């Protein structure tokens, strides 16, 4: 078996892991499985493309590729703006839809259903605006560099892996070392008690949406950069995201990242062993095994 699959799996796993952190945070703090999370990835990718395209029109020097990478300065600048915009999108959806349902005290499953409706509307809106034709941030080609051990990776891929590591460490520190992180863990433990203890539950909810959306946006931009941008980008990643969030244990950030890597590596291994057409079934198999053997996941607590 070609060892290159390890590299491919690691890169796919990094993107799944980033998305899964968002899923696991919203799941543990807002208490429902958000089927619209995949759409935040797609929107992030498309928003970055739109902003980057606009920047490119303003000045051509921004589009000129930076030394080893395939993209110019327009993409990193656009990424920052896209992260903010995706966060705002998530906050807007919450204010319009989930917040109202929450205030009404709707059952969890109504929220799940609303997220299902929101996901369809958001995805088809992308399809309407940008059509379903695949898009790319850049047309530049990249040569993969040898890393030793028979592994190769393009500079873009290595940069994505590095950024993922930084993002995960930052989120982990935020959750464990800061006061807002402590508030988040308190709300996920018991919202009523946290509210009595003086935690601003609404603020925590806003922070969770923003963080989840920001990570989703980063994952979406990476997927767009390394693969391609499509309206179904996020939808096709949704099952791996859920599988990773449940495998890692709902609420566990390191768990989600680790599980994301496991899912990514298993997918890459399945492509080698079984065939690329079965790739999408891997997450389902993992999901079934976790639900059978250890429903609380690797790092989760028993319900």
């Amino acid at each position, binding site marked *: 078996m070609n060892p290159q699959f390890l590299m491919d799996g690691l890169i796919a796993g990094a993107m799944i892991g980033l998305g899964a952190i968002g899923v696991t945070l919203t799941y543990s703090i807002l208490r429902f499985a958000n089927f619209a999370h995949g759409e935040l990835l797609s929107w992030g990718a498309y928003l970055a493309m739109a902003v980057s395209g606009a920047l490119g029109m303003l000045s051509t020097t921004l589009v000129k590729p930076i030394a080893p990478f395939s993209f110019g300065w327009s993409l990193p600048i656009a990424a920052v703006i896209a992260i903010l915009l995706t966060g705002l999108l998530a906050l807007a959806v919450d204010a319009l839809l989930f917040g109202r349902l929450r205030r009404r005290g709707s059952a969890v499953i109504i929220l799940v259903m609303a997220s*299902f409706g929101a996901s369809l509307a958001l995805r088809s809106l992308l399809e309407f605006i940008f059509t379903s034709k695949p898009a790319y941030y850049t047309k530049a080609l990249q040569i993969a560099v040898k890393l030793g051990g028979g592994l190769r990776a393009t500079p873009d891929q290595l940069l994505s892996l590095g950024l993922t590591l930084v993002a995960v460490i930052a989120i982990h520190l935020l959750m464990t070392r800061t006061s807002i992180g402590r508030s988040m863990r308190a709300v996920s433990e018991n919202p009523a008690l946290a509210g009595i203890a003086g935690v601003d539950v609404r603020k925590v909810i806003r922070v969770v949406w923003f963080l989840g959306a920001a990570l989703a946006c980063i994952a979406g931009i990476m997927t767009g950069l390394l693969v391609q941008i499509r309206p179904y980008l996020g939808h096709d990643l949704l099952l791996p995201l859920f599988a990773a969030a449940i495998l890692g244990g709902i609420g566990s950030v390191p768990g989600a990242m680790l599980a994301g890597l496991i899912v990514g590596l298993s997918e890459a291994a399945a492509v080698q062993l079984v065939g690329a057409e079965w790739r999408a079934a891997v997450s389902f198999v993992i999901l079934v095994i976790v639900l059978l053997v250890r429903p609380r996941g690797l790092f989760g607590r028993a319900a």
Partner: protein
Amino acid sequence: MSLDILAYGAFFLTMALTYAIMCLGLNIQWGQTGLFNVGIAAFVAIGAYVSAILTTPETPDRFGGFDLPIVVGWLGASIAAGLAAWLVGALTIRLRSDYLAIATFGVAVSVQLCVLNIQPLTGGAFGVGFIPRPFGSLAGNPLTFSLANLALTACVVLGLYLALEHLTKSPWGRVLRAIREDEVAAQALGKRPIRFRLQAFTIGGAIMGLAGAVQGHFIGFIAPDNYLPILTFQVWAMLIVGGSGNNRGAILGAVLVWGLWALTAAAVSAFVPPEQQARASSLQIVAIGVGLCLILLLRPRGILGEGRSSIAGRFKPKSKAQQKFKE
């Protein structure tokens, strides 16, 4: 001309009624029991393919083709889809309520993959053709053919409706609603929620399989593209519009939403230039998504609502877990 319109009307209604069957299946899972199934398309697909494999004439390049009567196909479809639903339910119903949703979503993805990739069994992307159609001997006369099919499908819907109404009013149906409203109280009365939920989920899945078979035989051709997630979504919209928990609402919702869908699709193909049609139809899906959210926000009970058998307060806070989340 008027005969053509009549034939088209019959065709349209028959299609709508096949959706009504799916809706009835979903109603027993969601409306009566509160189980969220995101994989309706998967169960419908299982039914359609099983029935097609059982009843098509033998073909050299594909396994199956047993040339059995259509009724056997329908029966096989229900059993296969019911079995699949039972497996998924047995795996997830004892866990958190939304794990079932995630698992059924996974089933939908996986069934879609199987249908596409197991070419010797399902014909892959090309699908299965030459599925025997009920009253195929009348096909020469479109009007009688459509009317006969409409009558047959209507009979299936009516039979299911009566059976489900009976089931809903039976002690079994009362237990389901009791569990949905207050699980702890039902448990205290000696009912085992997991077993009842699993039964309801299995029956619902079997009905969806039957719907897939009826639809497949009516059209005479099935392909993986018929069972995309959008199908799941349409059926959900139908039930929510009609009123979940109400069997008549399920049928009414199916006819209304399918009518709206067919009408807007016709308008798109008539008035929108060809190169913009894909975009316009994506806007159609946006409308359904937004519509579903709006109904959840504004009129969660749908047009007909659950009716007199309902225990009030379905959408009001029920358990402490939800109450404490009310800001």
